[in-house]
């Protein structure tokens, strides 16, 4: 394995509170040395000029849907991992709602096996109940041994609170967190957009914020009573942020994540954000168009909710930025809004959207590294990831914060194109993605070819 010397980058490590211009030497898949004026013999490896770039511990997306096994036409583990690499993520944790559900060690092992050819680390998350049917707990010990890093019924909630309690207790004994997708099914009902001005205006069935908040309150109470950790997935409301803040104040072991779309868009996008191909039509004709790539669960909320999410990220009430990358084929999304599946892809747009928060002064680069890497590594118990100290895994995200580019869904590595951000002019991208000491993605084509990175 060749050594890599990153020269003169802005090294940002939340774990050691480091933010300085330094060199980093990578050897044998680990961080070998951090310092000034490090030298590397040309024969021993390669040196990469990293001036103007930020070197962060590798971003970890603890919330993706990879669709394999079962729906490989939407995404495979390989295409999802390539999308991750292109987007600057060095590790991804994939949710259990595949077909079949990741509810037993055999499926977990299958995912790990498929992931061996993937350019980034893939950590499977097991379901909480068999088949995600909410009746029987999965064999957590067996699955944890096979590689499951957490358990989650994501996409659904576990309605039976007694069963949920026991799942938390069981997972707790295995040092595995439970990730909670919070939704009250009765309040959610047939809702497709946030219940508010837009649902009222256009007659869409609405999803009230309390559909999420009631279930978050339940999960917090469980965590508090049991003194065990829970992680709240994709927080989308002001009320939810307040519930989590209060719980943290009294010492409840609760962590939370927010997605880039929930801190970037509000529900007005449902009627105002067009497919590029619809834009001319809508503007010329002055009618609304409803882009199903604004449909996700939880839904896009009010501007006040977006502000609360940003504030939660700023203060650390929300620990993690995660994508909820949910690939769907174009034809599945290009249907009546109410019939379209929930979810959008996010791996290849998360970094520039997060950098918007940095440019607005909501997050420092250090806090961005914390939300994208250090915090998820801590929650998932990945001891050698999420930091830039000597001896840790050489998983690095090297960010070019200035680079201006236009998001083009056709250029995605992901097999799916369901993004509301197509055509957006953004700033900042992953210059390099380094996983286990190997450069798996380089934005600059010349650099990529000199490093011998195969084009996917």
């Amino acid at each position, binding site marked *: 394995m060749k050594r890599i010397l990153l020269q003169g980058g802005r090294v940002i490590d939340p774990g050691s509170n480091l933010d300085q211009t330094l060199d980093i030497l990578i050897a044998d898949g680990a961080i070998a040395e951090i310092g000034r004026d490090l030298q590397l013999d040309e024969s021993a490896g390669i040196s990469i000029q990293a001036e103007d770039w930020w070197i962060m511990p590798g971003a970890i997306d603890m919330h993706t849907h990879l669709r394999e096994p079962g729906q490989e036409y939407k995404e495979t583990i390989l295409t999802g991992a390539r999308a991750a690499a292109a987007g600057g993520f060095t590790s991804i944790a994939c949710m259990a709602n595949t077909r079949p559900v990741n509810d037993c060690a055999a499926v977990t092992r299958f995912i790990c096996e498929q992931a061996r050819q993937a350019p980034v680390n893939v950590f499977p998350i097991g379901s909480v109940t068999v088949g995600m049917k909410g009746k029987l707990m999965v064999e957590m010990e067996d699955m944890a041994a096979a590689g499951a890093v957490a358990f989650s019924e994501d996409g659904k909630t576990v309605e039976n609170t007694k069963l949920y309690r026991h799942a938390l207790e069981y997972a707790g004994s295995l040092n595995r967190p439970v990730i909670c997708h919070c939704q009250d099914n009765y309040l959610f*009902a047939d809702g497709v957009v946030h*219940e*508010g*001005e*837009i*649902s*009222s*205006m*256009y*007659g*869409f069935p*609405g999803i*009230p914020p309390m559909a999420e908040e009631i279930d978050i309150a339940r999960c917090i109470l469980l965590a508090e009573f049991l003194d065990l950790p829970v992680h709240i997935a994709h927080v989308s409301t002001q009320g939810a942020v307040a519930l989590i803040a209060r719980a943290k104040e009294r010492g409840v072991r609760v962590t939370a994540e927010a997605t880039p779309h929930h801190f970037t868009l509000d529900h007005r996008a449902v009627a105002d954000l067009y497919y590029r*191909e*619809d834009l001319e*039509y*809508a503007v010329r*004709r*002055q*009618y*609304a*168009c*409803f882009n199903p790539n604004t449909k996700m669960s939880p839904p896009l909320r009010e501007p006040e909710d977006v502000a609360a999410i940003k504030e939660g990220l700023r203060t650390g009430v929300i620990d993690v930025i995660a994508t909820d990358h949910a690939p769907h084929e174009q*034809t599945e999304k*290009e*249907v*009546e*809004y*109410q*019939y379209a599946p929930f979810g959008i892809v996010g791996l290849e747009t998360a970094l520039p959207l997060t950098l918007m928060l940095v440019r607005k002064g909501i997050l420092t680069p250090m806090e961005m590294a914390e939300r994208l890497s250090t915090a998820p590594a801590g929650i998932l118990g990945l001891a050698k990831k999420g930091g830039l100290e000597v001896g840790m895994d050489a998983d690095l995200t090297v960010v070019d914060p200035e680079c201006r580019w236009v998001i083009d869904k056709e250029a995605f590595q992901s097999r799916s194109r369901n993004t509301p951000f197509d055509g957006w002019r953004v700033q900042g991208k992953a210059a390099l993605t380094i996983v286990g000491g190997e450069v798996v993605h380089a934005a600059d084509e010349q650099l990529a070819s000199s490093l011998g990175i195969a084009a996917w």
Partner: protein
Amino acid sequence: MKKRIFSRKDLLAIKGLHEDDLTLILDTAESFKEISRRPIKKVPTLRGQTIINLFYEPSTRTRSSFEIAAKRLSADAINISASTSSVVKGETLLDTVKNLQAMAPDIIVIRHACVGAPHLIAARVDARVVNAGDGANEHPSQALLDLLTIREHKKNFAGLKVAIIGDIAHSRVARSNMHALPLLGAEVRVCSPPTMLPLRMDAFPGVRTCASPEEALEGVDVVMMLRIQLERQDRTLFPSVNEYARCYGLNVRRLALAKKDAIVMHPGPMNRGVEISSAVADGKHSVILDQVENGVAVRMAILYLLGGIAE
């Protein structure tokens, strides 16, 4: 023939139209009414044009009204209902419409259970698209026939007081009227059980929410009653039909609160004895059958303005 000046390719919603658009459609409809009273109810205006009525929801009134309107303008009208189409074979809406487009229709009239279905196809086909009802969003031709009926009885809209009573949240008729009436200067009051009121009524400027039907009816010129969907699955919206009729139904006693010359409207089909008593539905204030007659004229106007060739 007057020159066609309706500038839009489609009629998808009232929201987004201007006052002039509404007036143009109403004026055109008025001039068409006379055709339906002739012994030979047919003019050659849209001869050679093909109009497809694509109905994904059951409908008697609206579909037959569009069909008759098309035929009176000499267009060829084809009706497709979801139960007989390839929908049952799993074809997507866009594929169905692209196939229809290949047969070169001039206008597609679509009724669909989903919000925005007409918008979805309008951007992707050459045919002009008319929304005949999309989910709980809009039913523009219904609002226009309501407007025509009101105008015939009340001359103009400025300062007119209109009460809309019933299931507002799930009503596309209500939404189209809540956009149209304030645009023309009418004052709109709505009343509904709290379970059937949209959360954010402030999305509709110029519409006042009333706590009781009595408050809504006080001194109004026009009463619009909405249909209660008894077939709805969600049984949590109101306790019983009896209670609904007692609390919100329009009867002779409640109607007495309105102006003496108030008109009573209903988009149909009516649940007699539920949202409206038979005495009111068949009484002298009722203009419900005028609405149906005007429906044909309004739809002739819409088809003409979208499809007619300017001379």
